[in-house]
């Protein structure tokens, strides 16, 4: 039953609208400005007609393209590696004795909860100490450290939901541990694996702070963007930001769809 409180209702509605506008206006502005550039003629500010010029400039910009390639490589490798690690941790957690499991839980989550600047700095110092030259490998390691907790969480929840009995049934029917993993456990976890992978990919693709510390001469897309901003604004930035926005939104929608189908399966 709905209580009548018109004042509170309209206040909540108003706050929500203001909040959404504040959140999305800058994003929408970036998208709009990537198609309609601001012109300044004799001190008068106006808009140029619709143009894809910034996008053309973006495609022609080799530095950006190579940064994009780096980002995609890093995100792909880092998310796959995180998935494998997270699965191993999760399997360990559900079989380990309580104390060890809890300890591991804390150790997995700590890098995610620490300020990224600390994680980045710590990694940088560690790489320096062991004389590990910074490059693609260090960026990937940095991302894995940061992403594993997120994937681990997704995978563990699903694994705990599965319970022991399917594994036991499979073994009981004569399957080996490997056959059980391949034929029973992984297929049952597929939605969680895919959404974990997408989430990892999205986080890795956007990660900036840790990357800054460990990138060396490598340049990922967010770092490229950062570098471009420092030397002055060019229209490509709006175009690039729009593309990243679209890409991230697509992944978010995909994760949402995966989790919904997972929910339907479970019910």
């Amino acid at each position: 039953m709905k209580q009548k409180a018109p004042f509170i209702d309209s206040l909540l509605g108003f706050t929500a609208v203001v909040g959404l506008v504040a959140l999305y206006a800058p994003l929408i502005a970036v998208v709009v400005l990537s198609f309609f550039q601001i012109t300044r003629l004799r001190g008068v500010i106006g808009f140029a007609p619709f143009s894809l010029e910034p996008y053309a400039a973006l495609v022609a910009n080799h530095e950006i393209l190579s940064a994009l390639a780096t980002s995609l490589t890093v995100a792909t490798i880092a998310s796959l590696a995180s998935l494998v690690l997270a699965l191993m941790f999760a399997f360990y957690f559900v079989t380990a004795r309580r104390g060890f499991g809890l300890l591991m839980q804390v150790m997995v989550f700590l890098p995610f909860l620490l300020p990224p600047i600390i994680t980045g700095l710590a990694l940088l110092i560690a790489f320096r100490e062991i004389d590990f030259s910074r490059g693609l490998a260090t960026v990937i390691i940095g991302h894995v450290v940061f992403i594993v907790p997120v994937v681990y969480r997704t995978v563990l929840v699903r694994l705990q939901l599965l319970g022991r009995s399917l594994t036991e049934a499979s073994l009981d029917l004569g399957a080996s541990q490997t056959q059980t993993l391949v034929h029973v456990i992984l297929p049952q976890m597929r939605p969680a694996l895919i959404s974990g992978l997408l989430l990892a990919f999205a986080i890795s693709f956007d990660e900036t702070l840790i990357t800054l510390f460990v990138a060396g001469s490598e340049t990922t897309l967010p770092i490229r963007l950062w570098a471009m901003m420092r030397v002055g604004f060019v229209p490509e930035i709006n175009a690039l930001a729009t593309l990243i926005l679209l890409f991230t939104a697509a992944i978010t929608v995909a994760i949402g769809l995966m989790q919904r189908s997972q929910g339907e399966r479970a019910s």
Partner: protein
Amino acid sequence: MQPLLHLENISKRYGSVRVLDGIDIAVADNEFLTILGPSGSGKTTILRIIGGFESIDGGRLMFDGRDLAAVPINRRPFNTVFQDYALFHHMSVAENIGYGLKVRGRPKAEIATRVADVLETVGLGAFGARYPAQLSGGQRQRVALARAIICEPRMILLDEPLSALDVDLRAQMQRFLKSLQRRLGIAFVFITHDQEEAIALSDRIVVVNHGRIEQEGAPEQLYRRPRTPFIAAFLGENNLLSGVLAAVDGQLGQVDTAAGRLVATADGPLPALGQAVQVAVRPEHITLSPASAATRDALTAEVADIRFLGANILIELTHPALPDTVLKVRRLADGSAADFRTGQKLNLSWAVHDAALLVPGG
């Protein structure tokens, strides 16, 4: 004769809690053996030990003369029907059933033929292409059974497989299980907390309580000749009267209770005089007569309630010397009980061999 499966003096601890103590069970070829016990009695732990899902802290587990200690779950020569069925939801019914053959690397054609055979056996001929989510509880149960028997084990384990079904379906599945066991000619080790189910299905019942075997035997034997108050109360209904053993004559013991001296028959060895014992009498074995007819050995009690239960009438009586006990008497509802009324005083009597002398904790 060597038993098919032999649990020899098995014990099991969780931390400092002893969950199983000196469990000794022999399962014969072709036998329907039920392990019966209330929840927390350790019966599921016994099944999990046989299946290899739990380790043991003492004793030996033998199958067909071979020690199973070093045999992992997936090499044990029998299969399990799990309480929650544990069907693989991403596989069709046929894939579920064929799984045991597939992981053994049998050729596809052979798997298909045998799956079709087993589907027929469990009465699910047309359901091979369906998925578990599209089946009813009873059908899933049959899939779980089919999956367990396809590798033709000499024994299967069933962990409370009927507990999730409603009453009608349960009765139907009981008949099906029993006939399947006879047709296959293999041993069933069946776990349940439902005494009626155990009595209806089993060749033999092992009753477990607090991690120990309370008594074992054929259903009728357990029902007629319980040895402990627990069995007497757990299987069917019983009137239990506490007292002290006062005199012994052969297998007959005289027991002094608060309501007077009663005579009862012991099944096993009699305890020492002066020991606390109980007398158990089934409600259907008690004869009621008007109190005026003073009979030796009869209890006189007052009718507290008369309940009509369809085929039966349950008469509840109270005795002034037994304030915490309601005496129950059952009569067929054939009109002979029509003249009883509340408040009436009646004599209770029974044949001596219908009164069982029980030793608590024995």
